[in-house]
Each structure stands twice: as structure tokens, then as C-alpha cells.
């Protein structure tokens, strides 16, 4: 059973890429390559500013007061959500100072076993301030809900 939620528009989000947040991300993952946290090193390597690492677009896309609201509006208990799959396609780099516009849609929402198991697939495009597509990513979430039957 697929659902009416598929292709429901999700309001676009615009987020600035901040140097401090890239530095914080680099610290949190134990990054050692300075192009990901030091502006001078990034420039010396030919970048306009600090380079966002390959998975950073997802972090930036969560840069809103309540990124889980969209899932709650689908009746999903966020404590039952597990990230099952994540994929990225890359077209252009993201750097500190960029302004990224995220356009997301729900590609599929599948219920199995009378709703005890649900799969939600969401695709997001990240466009920069020059209207260049930087990356497209696809997130698959699995929701285990043992009480859904009752």
C-alpha cells in the first residue's frame, strides 16, 4: 500500500553554510584534513573557503527549528525511526558562505505487515545561490511500529 503522502510538497528550506558549524562538524567526526576546518588551508588548496564534507548537506538540511515535524505530520513516531539507507549524487562543491536551498519530496511511503513496518523514502535537491545543483540525496527511513495493528 503506497500513500497519499507521496509527492506531498515539503516547504523549501534555505540555509547559510557557516564556518563555525563546519568546524564543529569536523571536530565531532575527528576530521584531520584542514581543508574541512581551516579557511587558510582550504584557500591554499584552491577552495574559496572551508569545504563541506560529503555528507554535510544532510546536516545543513536539518537546520530548522523542528526538522522532524514533517514526519510527525505523517503520523510517524520519531523514536521508532531508523535510518536504513542514504545516498548522494554530487554535482558541485558546497563551501562556507554558500546559501543552499533544499527542495524535498517524499518519493515513496510503503506500509507492510498491517502498518507495523513502514518505509519512507525522501529525496532532496540542494541548490546554491548561483542556482547550481550541488547534490541530490535520498534518505530511506524504516519505522517499526509494533502497536500499529491494534
Amino acid at each position, binding site marked *: 500500500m503506497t500513500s497519499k503522502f507521496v509527492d506531498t510538497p515539503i516547504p523549501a528550506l534555505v540555509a547559510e553554510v557557516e564556518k563555525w558549524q563546519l568546524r564543529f*562538524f569536523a571536530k565531532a*567526526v575527528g576530521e584531520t584534513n584542514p581543508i574541512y576546518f581551516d579557511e587558510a588551508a582550504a584557500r591554499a588548496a584552491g577552495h574559496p573557503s572551508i569545504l563541506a*564534507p*560529503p555528507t554535510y548537506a544532510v*546536516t545543513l538540511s*536539518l537546520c530548522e527549528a523542528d526538522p522532524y515535524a514533517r514526519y510527525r505530520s505523517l503520523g510517524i513516531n520519531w523514536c521508532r*525511526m*531508523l535510518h536504513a539507507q542514504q545516498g548522494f549524487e*554530487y554535482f558541485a562543491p558546497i563551501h562556507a558562505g554558500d546559501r543552499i536551498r533544499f527542495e524535498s519530496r517524499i518519493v515513496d511511503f510503503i506500509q507492510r505487515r498491517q502498518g507495523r513496518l513502514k518505509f519512507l523514502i525522501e529525496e532532496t535537491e540542494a541548490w546554491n545561490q548561483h542556482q547550481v545543483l550541488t547534490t541530490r540525496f535520498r534518505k530511506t527511513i524504516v519505522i517499526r511500529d509494533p502497536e500499529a495493528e491494534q
Partner: protein
Amino acid sequence: MILHAGQVALGDRLPTLVKPPITRTTLAYFCGASNDHNPLHVDPDVARAAGMEDVFAHGMLNMAYLGQLLTGWVDQSCLRGFEVKFGAIVRLGEQLVCNGEVVDKQLRDGGCRILIRLLATNQAGEVKLTGEAVVELPLAEPAQTTGS
């Protein structure tokens, strides 16, 4: 320095990346730094109420580690695709051991497409993440290319 096609062969392995054991501090930092404030990863009470033993690593933290395996081997500008399946949760005290192997190499459109199979296990060899990455390399060293 950017790798070029001649330096990469089928069966080549990326240098293994071993990350430190996951601690509550690791998860607290990543919660703040990643904007993923889901309490399952930082609040043991919420994790237990959801039927988990304790907090566990964010999927995107584990994927960031595999990303470091890739960018430690090839310049990020060469990365065209990167995807993973999160097979098992990564618990406190576990260490991710990240590996990649070149499984395909195709010459096309004046470049070279490399497919890398990715695997992240814990220190005991239990599979945590599997995935693949697509990398596009120049055919020769940048100084020797003709620009087309």
C-alpha cells in the same frame, strides 16, 4: 594531489581507517554538530523507552566516517556518488573499521569511472554499514592533460 586513472587498479584497497570507540561524548558532539537532535542518540531514558539497550551512534556519523575513508584517498572533487545501507546499529564502545575496494574501472567520456565497494565493521568484524562510491578520475596527471 589528485589521483589519476593509471594509479588505480581493480582490486586496490583504500587504506583502512579505524575510528576511536564511540562514547557518549562523541554522540553529544555529533548531536550538536549535525543538527540531528533525535534524543535516541543522546538520552538513555528515551533510548530504553524505545526498546533499545542504550543510546547508539547516528547513522550519519557512521556515514561521515566512511566519507573520511574516501576523502582520505581521493580528492573530494572526484566524488560523484556515495551511498550506504545501515545494516546494524553501532553501540557505545564499538569502533568503526572502514574499508573500501576498487571493484570496477571504466574509461569513458575522456575520464575514468571507478566503483568502490565500502564496508564498515566493528572491531570484531561484525558488519555495520555496506555501500559504494563512484569516483571520476582524470586519465593522466593534471599537468599532462590537454584540457579536453
